[in-house]
């Protein structure tokens, strides 16, 4: 049967290339494997050749393997292009385009659609593997064989994720080119079927538009963050493959030189990708920050931490011959953790704990678990089988040596990563425990305690202290042993750093007491350490590296890291809710009430309201021309001097669903951000323009004021001194009027408008009777006489309820990230340059050989 308006060719092409990529990746895996096995990398007895000569592979197999891999790369690119063609041409006969895009979507977000779905993100991963693979074929002649065997095999595994064919009842992956009419989506919609029960030939004409992209993803960070993050994820396979290659070919030491730039690249890009995700969360999510210890975030952070630990142990090995075993382990684990994270976040097993874990639909759980195991088992077997053969130095490192403290730093990072992933895996443990206890319900599932973020923070704060201190001192130490002159170099930066840290503490007013004085002390220590580290590494660029930036990658990365740490510590401990609700029922708390004021504040349109140090007016709103997206303009004023507008927006009643999806807006200052987002709205479809203003009247206690639908009696005026979240000075005061409103329908309401006199400024907090569309404002209090503003509106009250925060020094975090990534890249470039010199000129060959000799002393 032919259907009208379908474009079947792109799908057929796409599917063809999917299958081709699967076959080609098998071919590449097998041929690369044989090229290594049939090459002469170890002698017939199976003993490793002692680090001499280069790895020789079977060139015939390698030639075939390259053809296969290039075919594979072309196929994956073709799949990418085809799928993008389908999305950008709005071919809604394909489920992927229908499900993830819509006609109204801006061009830039069409790319985001691409990676919204599971299939697209696995495709993205696969593409980066291809790019990395091609670079390896081009640059890494010697290690091409083993490394590409691993990458080709990973490509095969990823290709099975996109197959969409069932074997023995188990579905292998999800085909992105499936047609909408075959996907089951239309099965329950009788409209698509004719009287004979067959699908209507013109069914496509009924599908006017796609399902659209999740509004939260309609953000520019979502265009760029996933590709960078996935490049980071994909690139962790390179150090892994080098380590596996070394173990496999028993050339335990030679891979380290070539792997170092790759590991630096991966750590830099993964770090950048994670922080871009944090920036996205900060700008478009509503958990009020950039980091929430959410499983999805943890799952990307943990491989990075282990990878960074691996980079450090690799550096130790390159300079001293120590820590090779640990390096192997860390590189293997960082890639396995990427796979484990993929399982955690994409299998749906974490749905209950994550704000944004993805479902297990499409690609099934067994497949993701299988992907992890198929890499985990062989690499562990290989690692433990060869463990004893990996060279190590029996002699103990000196306590004054750089490697000793670097190693400790790596261990701390590694253990901290293990702790984080263990905490994140609580639902997995529940699942496993549930398997053993079965259905008898004896097992009660565990859940993370009351303050999940604090559960993480109170452990990681100590990691911050240790890592901060180690990075501060580490650079000034020398490999092998540090002599007195070097210690002397350390003194001046240490003094400056600690003084600067002390100044930050003294004048920064870091007073975060929510979790007790002990925790505050830990924050102070961590801040001291990170400021010290910032200064120490900054000055090392000039004292240690003589200002030669291309050599100073390490110090630059550390400066960036210390800056990030400083930014994190200050912005989190000084983060301040400024939308404290001082109106409404919270005025009724008794003296000394410990009740926390609410964090949401309601702004009535056109009524200036006091919020923190600002007076905020909800000014006007506007709608997006094509989408149900509303912008709410809020005018912030401070002391009559400073004035700016923020426009947090929200999707209202998006796609017929009640409710709103809000995006925050922030005002960026050099030293802090003012950050606000909408938490609640009246239904805007019912609202109309409100043009009335307050009419002022002088009223004494007992007086009656009439309004169109009834009257109001001033019952009492009293002064109050206790408003949660407001600190009263000696000259400050606040008054509250109690007014009884009696409507024509004889309903009685009591309202309490308030006026606050704070530092010479008067803030009136009106109160409202929503049912009567009545607003009363206490404008002036003169003994027992008051000036009362009365406003009646035909319109249903327009208001927004919002939350607002002040984030100090968040810019340090973003700037620090950039500097850190820059440091990684400089370091990478320097190492690549170094490697090239060594292979061509052999100038430093002697030194390296010396290290390797040592490495074999065993």
């Amino acid at each position, binding site marked *: 049967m032919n259907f009208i308006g379908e474009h079947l060719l792109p799908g057929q092409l796409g599917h063809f290339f999917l299958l081709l990529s699967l076959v080609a990746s098998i071919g590449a895996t097998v041929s690369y494997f044989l090229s290594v096995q049939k090459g002469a990398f170890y002698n017939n007895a199976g003993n490793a050749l002692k680090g001499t000569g280069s790895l020789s592979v079977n060139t015939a197999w390698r030639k075939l393997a390259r053809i296969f891999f290039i075919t594979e790369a072309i196929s994956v690119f073709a799949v990418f292009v085809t799928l993008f063609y389908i999305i950008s041409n709005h071919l809604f006969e394909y489920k992927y385009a229908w499900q993830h895009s819509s006609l109204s979507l801006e061009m830039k977000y069409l790319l985001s659609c691409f990676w919204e779905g599971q299939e697209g993100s696995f495709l993205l991963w696969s593409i980066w593997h291809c790019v990395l693979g091609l670079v390896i074929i081009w640059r890494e002649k010697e290690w091409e064989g083993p490394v590409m065997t691993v990458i080709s095999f990973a490509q095969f595994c990823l290709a099975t994720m996109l197959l969409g064919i069932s074997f023995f009842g188990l579905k292998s992956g999800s085909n992105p080119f499936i047609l909408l009419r075959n996907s*089951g989506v239309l099965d329950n919609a009788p409209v698509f079927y004719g009287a004979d029960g067959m699908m209507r030939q013109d069914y496509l004409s009924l599908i006017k538009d796609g399902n659209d992209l999740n509004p939260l993803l309609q953000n520019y960070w979502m265009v760029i963050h996933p590709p960078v993050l996935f490049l980071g994820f994909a690139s962790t396979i390179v150090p892994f493959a080098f380590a596996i290659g070394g173990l496999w070919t028993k050339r335990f030491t030679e891979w380290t030189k070539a792997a170092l730039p790759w590991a630096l690249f991966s750590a830099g890009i993964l770090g950048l990708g994670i922080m871009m995700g944090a920036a996205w969360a900060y700008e478009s999510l509503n958990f009020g920050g950039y980091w929430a210890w959410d499983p999805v975030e943890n799952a990307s952070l943990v491989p990075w931490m282990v990878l960074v630990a691996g980079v450090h142990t690799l550096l130790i090995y390159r300079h001293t011959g120590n820590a090779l075993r640990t390096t192997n382990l860390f590189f293997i684990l960082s890639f396995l953790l990427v796979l484990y994270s993929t399982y955690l976040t994409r299998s749906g097993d974490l749905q209950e704990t994550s704000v944004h874990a993805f479902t297990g639909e499409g690609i099934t759980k067994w497949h993701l678990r299988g992907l992890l195991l198929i890499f985990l088992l062989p690499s562990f077997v290989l690692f433990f089988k060869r463990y004893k053969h990996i060279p190590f130095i029996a002699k103990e490192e000196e306590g004054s040596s750089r490697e000793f403290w670097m190693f400790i730093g790596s261990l701390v990072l590694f253990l901290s990563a293990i702790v984080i992933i263990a905490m994140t895996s609580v639902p997995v443990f529940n699942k496993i425990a549930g398997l053993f206890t079965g259905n008898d319900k004896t097992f009660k599932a565990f859940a993370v305690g*009351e303050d999940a973020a604090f559960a993480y923070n109170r452990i990681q704060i100590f990691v911050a202290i240790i890592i901060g201190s180690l990075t501060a001192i580490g650079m000034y130490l020398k490999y092998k042993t540090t002599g007195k002159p070097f210690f002397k170099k350390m003194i001046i930066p240490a003094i400056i750093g600690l003084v600067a840290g002390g100044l930050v503490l003294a004048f920064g007013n870091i007073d975060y007491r929510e979790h007790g004085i002990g925790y505050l002390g830990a924050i102070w220590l961590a801040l001291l350490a990170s400021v010290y580290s910032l200064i120490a590494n900054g000055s090392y660029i000039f004292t240690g590296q003589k200002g030669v930036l291309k050599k100073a990658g390490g110090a630059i990365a550390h400066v960036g890291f210390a800056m990030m740490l400083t930014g994190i510590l200050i912005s989190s401990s000084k983060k301040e809710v400024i939308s404290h609700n001082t109106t409404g029922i919270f005025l009724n708390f008794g003296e000394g009430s410990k009740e926390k004021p609410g964090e949401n504040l309601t702004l009535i349109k056109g009524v200036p309201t006091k919020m923190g140090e600002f007076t905020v007016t909800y000014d006007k709103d506007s709608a997006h021309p094509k989408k149900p997206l509303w912008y709410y303009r809020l005018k912030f004023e401070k002391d009559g001097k400073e004035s700016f507008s923020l426009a947090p927006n929200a999707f209202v009643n998006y796609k017929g669903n009640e409710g709103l999806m809000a995006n925050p807006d922030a005002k960026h200052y050099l030293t802090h951000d003012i950050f606000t987002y909408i938490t609640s709205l009246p239904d805007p479809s019912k609202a109309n323009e409100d043009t009335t203003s307050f009419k002022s009247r002088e009223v004494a206690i007992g007086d009656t004021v009439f309004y169109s639908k009834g009257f109001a009696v001033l019952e009492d005026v009293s002064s109050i001194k206790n408003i949660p979240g407001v600190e009263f000075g000696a000259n400050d005061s606040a008054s509250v009027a109690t007014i009884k409103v009696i409507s024509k329908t004889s309903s009685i309401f009591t309202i309490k408008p308030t006026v606050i006199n704070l530092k010479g400024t008067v803030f009136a907090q009106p109160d409202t009777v929503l049912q009567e569309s009545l607003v009363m404002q206490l404008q002036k209090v003169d003994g027992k006489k008051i000036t009362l503003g009365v406003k009646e509106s035909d319109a249903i009250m327009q208001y927004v309820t919002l939350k607002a925060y002040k984030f100090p020094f968040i810019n340090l975090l973003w700037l620090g990230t950039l500097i850190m990534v820059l440091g990684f890249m400089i370091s990478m470039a320097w190492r690549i340059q170094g490697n090239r010199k060594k292979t061509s000129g052999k100038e430093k060959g002697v030194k390296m050989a010396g290290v390797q000799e040592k490495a074999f002393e065993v």
Partner: protein
Amino acid sequence: MKKIHIVLLLLVIGGIVGMSFFIKDLTTQETFSTASQKKDFVVVKVQLDKNTPIEYDGLKNPNLTVFYATDQQGKRSKVVYKNAKPTDIEKSDGIDLNGYMRDGYFECTKLQMKCPSKYKDDMKVAQKSLPTSDSASTNKY
């Protein structure tokens, strides 16, 4: 014993101490009835009672949401959440309430919703955007 072993030992001890704090703070998933016996911070898996309207008035008090929910054993309870009404709560398939069982109501300090719309691949929500048989029969298309 090498220095590094001592350090490693200390770090592992530190890690274990840290983790034991975490484990100590772990709570359990309860039902409304077991939660009222426990009085501690607990997690209760519930379904929103969609027959009773959710009480929330941003003008009166933007920090108070009151709704009713039934737990997995079918017990219904009032839930007080001192915050703005969570977006999409009406659409939720299930809610994890975090908080304390008080007399007559559950005081919720944090809630985690399971919303079909949050998950990208959920077809039920996606199907809503398809034309229904009613609209098609009027030949709008």
